[in-house]
């Protein structure tokens, strides 16, 4: 089976999405923009989101220069500060929701540690001759238990967001709508949207505050690092060798669901033990059918009409425990 077909999705509107590897040392954004323009995208302004850089949001001179001075920084982080400054009630409510989400995450982590440990222990047993079917069933069952927990956790997270939005109606509050109106106008003038990396939680929550996906027109999206992660349906945090803790990848949030069928893994070459077949297999099987896209610098993967393809060299985690190349787009 070709990996791109595994990730095939049907939808009424399929936005063109490009996910890039980290841009700091090897910027490739301009090549991606040029490629889109060669395909017919009008060479207009480019909306830039750098809210993941927090108070350094405005330090986007390199990004702007790289794109020939065509960027308009949407200043999402700054707008969030302004909204919270004007609307203390909303700010308090956001903090309370975030605290609930933090507690949910803590409890999920406790359960996850045991389930992952069990799945890993079973995978480590291998497949003795004559008993393969028993072990395969147990492996699958153990991984399915992890998947079920991930699903349940995501449902609870979404419930918290729904409860928050129903009660506090952020999109009807003047502190938010004034910025939504401005953002809508800015975005209408842009032919392309870019989301940079940074702090994934702050980036996601600031974008959600303004209902960012609903403000987008049909522009293509290019995202990298944390920007790629928040664009996905699920935000998965990962690091196999943190200085503290077990390094168990965890579902952290519901993403913006702009990039579907993919778990972006920026810096996976540094953050994951890609040579450890058991870890790779568990990761890939746990998040299947989504593609776990390894996105080190210089890589690029595209979603056209719901199908993921890539430039040569971009790889994804495979259920067999190795890395496979994505189908190369003709």
């Amino acid at each position, binding site marked *: 089976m070709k990996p791109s077909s595994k990730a095939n999705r049907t939808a009424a509107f399929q936005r063109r999405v490009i996910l890039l590897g980290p841009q700091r040392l090897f910027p490739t954004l301009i090549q991606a923009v040029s490629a889109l323009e060669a395909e017919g995208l009008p060479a207009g302004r480019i909306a830039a989101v750098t809210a*993941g850089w927090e108070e350094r949001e405005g330090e986007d001179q390199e990004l702007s220069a790289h794109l020939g001075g065509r960027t308009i920084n949407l200043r999402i982080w700054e707008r969030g500060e302004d909204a919270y400054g004007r609307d203390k009630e909303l700010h308090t409510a956001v903090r309370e929701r975030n605290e609930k989400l933090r507690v949910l995450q803590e409890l999920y982590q406790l359960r996850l540690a045991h389930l992952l440990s069990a799945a890993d222990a079973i995978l480590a047993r291998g497949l003795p001759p004559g008993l393969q079917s028993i072990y395969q069933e147990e492996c699958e069952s153990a991984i399915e238990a992890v998947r079920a927990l991930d699903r349940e956790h995501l449902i609870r997270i979404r419930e918290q967001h729904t409860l928050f939005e129903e009660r506090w109606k952020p999109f009807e509050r003047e502190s938010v709508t004034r910025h939504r109106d401005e953002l809508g106008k800015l975005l209408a003038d842009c032919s392309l949207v870019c989301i940079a990396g940074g702090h994934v939680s702050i980036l996601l929550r600031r974008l959600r505050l303004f209902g960012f996906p609903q403000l987008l027109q049909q522009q293509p999206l290019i995202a990298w690092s944390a920007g790629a992660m928040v664009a996905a349906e699920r935000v998965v945090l990962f690091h196999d060798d943190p*200085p503290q803790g077990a390094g168990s990848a965890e579902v952290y949030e519901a993403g913006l669901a702009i990039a579907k069928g993919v778990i972006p893994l920026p810096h996976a070459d540094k953050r994951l033990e890609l040579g450890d077949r058991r870890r790779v297999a568990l990761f890939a099987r746990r998040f299947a059918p989504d593609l776990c896209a390894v996105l080190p610098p210089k890589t690029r993967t595209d979603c056209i009409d719901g199908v993921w393809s890539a430039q040569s060299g971009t790889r994804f985690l495979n259920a067999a425990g190795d890395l496979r190349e994505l189908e190369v787009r003709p």
Partner: protein
Amino acid sequence: MSGFVQELQQRAHEDPIAIDQWLRTRKLPHVDGRNVTFVFHGAADSVHLRHWIFGLPTSQAFTRIPGSFLWHMSMQLPENSRMEYKLEIVRGHAQQLIHDPLNVVQGHDPFGGNSVVFGAGYQVPAWTQHDAETREGHIEEHSIHSEAFGGTRHYSLYFPARYRTMRRYPLLVVHDGLDYVRFSALKTVLDNMIHRLEIPSMLVALTQSPDRLREYADDPRQGEFLVRELVPHLEASYPLLGIPSARGLMGASFGAVGSLSAAWRFPGFFGNLMLQSGSFVFTDIGSHDRGPVFDNVVRFVNEFRDNPGRPAERVFMSCGQYESLIYYNRSMFPLLQSTGMHVRFSESRDGHNWENWRDRLREGLSCLFPGPLWFVYE
């Protein structure tokens, strides 16, 4: 007899220049699993291995291969060990302590350093080495007038890369801070850990005492200086968070005693303590045998054990298993835990030296000041 020693014996009667040339092609000391063989080639009446591993004889004699100037000595060294040593060469009445001329690996300290042998499996941690991708911070030199000490005290201040005055930072104060920079690669470690998001961007005050054995041994002036003078000055001058959970104090050996003493005298001021190979010598009965320089230390540790209070919120302790201080540190661990503080204790197969303290920095700093690694993807 190991194959390597057999090879030595076979070559012992070759031309001395040929032996030297052959030795230069070998990685020495020779490590084969747990077995380590030291080699010396030269004229001497006797050759001894001098090391500081507590529990082993501090001097171990080499064997001379008859009819040659080739000497060797083998010993067991557990996996992942790191051992510092010198060679003692005796010629007539003269004794000379030298670095191992056949080993290029050396550890450094204020007294000149030692040769180092790595047990099987030990590797110098990559995060202690320069990384071209890492954004580098910088160090500035400052001074402050101290009422407590009655004079000017110099300190250095580490600023992280991308330091911004609009952000507020944690503060770590380091006893013997410049020694940590010189001998434990502290600046490189801070740069790397901050760049890799394993600790948050922070300011680090590097203090250096002109009389550390006295001032760190529960001298009340040291705590006064840190808590009433240096830290308030820094918090007034720089964008620091200024709360106990964002303040840390650390040191090694007597510097660890000074850290615990200051925290004990001003409980709750520093939320985080990092105590490396603390010289926490105490007595249950009678006197100690460590010399007068330890008198104040023993008095302090005995008082502390009687009434530990709750000096901080979080403590990271480390100690080498090859130090005599390991037993004191093991005793302190449950005592510190009993105070209700969150305490972690890490042992290593190493001695009382700066590279042991360097190798524990990642675990200790990330334990006390966890960084945004899990959340930041740039």
